[in-house]
């Protein structure tokens, strides 16, 4: 049996799906909760949760990105003490991953990247805006939008090269999509 056939049979196993989801959820949580880079002018931080989501969507496909992106970021909210956002985060980041995965499913080109960035930003920032609007008003919720757009910029700017670098350094990952 060739390596490719062997891998494609492995990634159909329930155990493989469970293992890959669990590991990617942990990756997303750590990228969101631990890896933060300061932005000079605002003294704020960019977390790398969206980077992990773009990476998962490109490398493992839309369904994995939906589950790993949603659950990973929701767990990060929980550990950071923002548990009230966890259910909303699950849908916002989960759907963000799903959309990116669906758009970049077949081929990664400039049009696809622009489309995926726009769709991911609209879905993620839109869900946060609407839910934050209901929670503490649509005026104050506007203040969150620039930060969410910036997160998506970081997601696509770092996530796409990261996926390419990992594919180059570890080619078996190409067969892990399911």
């Amino acid at each position: 049996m060739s390596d490719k056939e062997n891998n494609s049979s492995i990634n159909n196993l329930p155990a493989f799906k469970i293992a890959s989801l669990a590991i990617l959820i942990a990756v997303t949580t750590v990228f969101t909760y631990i890896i933060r880079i300061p932005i000079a002018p605002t003294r704020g931080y960019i977390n790398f949760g969206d980077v992990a989501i773009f990476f998962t969507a490109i490398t493992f496909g839309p369904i994995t990105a939906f589950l790993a992106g949603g659950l990973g970021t929701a767990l990060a909210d929980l550990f950071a003490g923002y548990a009230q956002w966890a259910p909303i985060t699950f849908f916002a980041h989960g759907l963000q991953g799903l959309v990116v995965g669906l758009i970049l499913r077949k081929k990664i080109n400039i049009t696809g990247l622009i489309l995926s960035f726009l769709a991911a930003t609209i879905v993620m920032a839109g869900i946060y805006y609407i839910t934050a609007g209901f929670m503490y008003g649509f005026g104050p919720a506007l203040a969150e939008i620039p930060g969410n757009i910036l997160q998506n910029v970081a997601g696509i700017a770092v996530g796409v090269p990261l996926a390419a670098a990992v594919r180059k350094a570890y080619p078996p990952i190409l067969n892990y999509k399911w």
Partner: protein
Amino acid sequence: MISSTFIQGNSILHKADPRLKAIILLSIVVIFFLPLSISAMLILFTGLILLGINSLGLLKALQPVKMILPILIFVIILTPPFFKGGETILIIKNTTILTSEGLFQTLRLILRFTGITVSFYIFFSTTSISSFVLTLEWFKLPYKAALIITIALRYIPSMIIIYNNIKDAHSLRSADNSKKYFWKKLNTVFPTLVSVLIHSIKSIPTLSMALELRGIGCSTKRTQFNLIKSNKMILQITVSGVILLLIILVALYT
């Protein structure tokens, strides 16, 4: 080792059934979205803070309020301009800054958001994460989903250690982690991220095999080592249900 926000304690909330606490948490979220008067919301909020102080102590109970303070400041600044009805309270240079409706809406939004935040904080500080996963299973979350979350929670602390080890290894090879700002910092972080991801992804086949060897994927029903005990739960549900109903009725008619 499982990541958690649980704070050890011996209070009523620590001892209460996690399924019951989950139901109460959802009810409190719904109550905060009901069209309540400010005084009713204030009573509910004060009750939550007192419950938090009783279970976690004063400083811990106020911790979530401190965390959402920047958002609350935004609410105070940005809500009044959207509501011009009612009596004028504050005018500066012929511009209405605050009306009674603006004040009411600002207070309502602050109490709602703070109340929901405090409720979630108290719930996760008094409920261990394993009890939470078991509660989700009791609410019909599929076994595989619960298993995925459990494995992820088990793997998070190990992954933090892996990340720190790889970061240190890169530092030893002259990657400067002390860079402060985005692009410079990114240049040093990127190779670390590649290594962390490859290390993590390489563990997927090993973990899959371990799960296969333990019969994951078989169609037969699995038994469980950990289960939530059901002692006194019906009594607790009845008492809490009556208290919740009273809170809703009092809140609606205050």
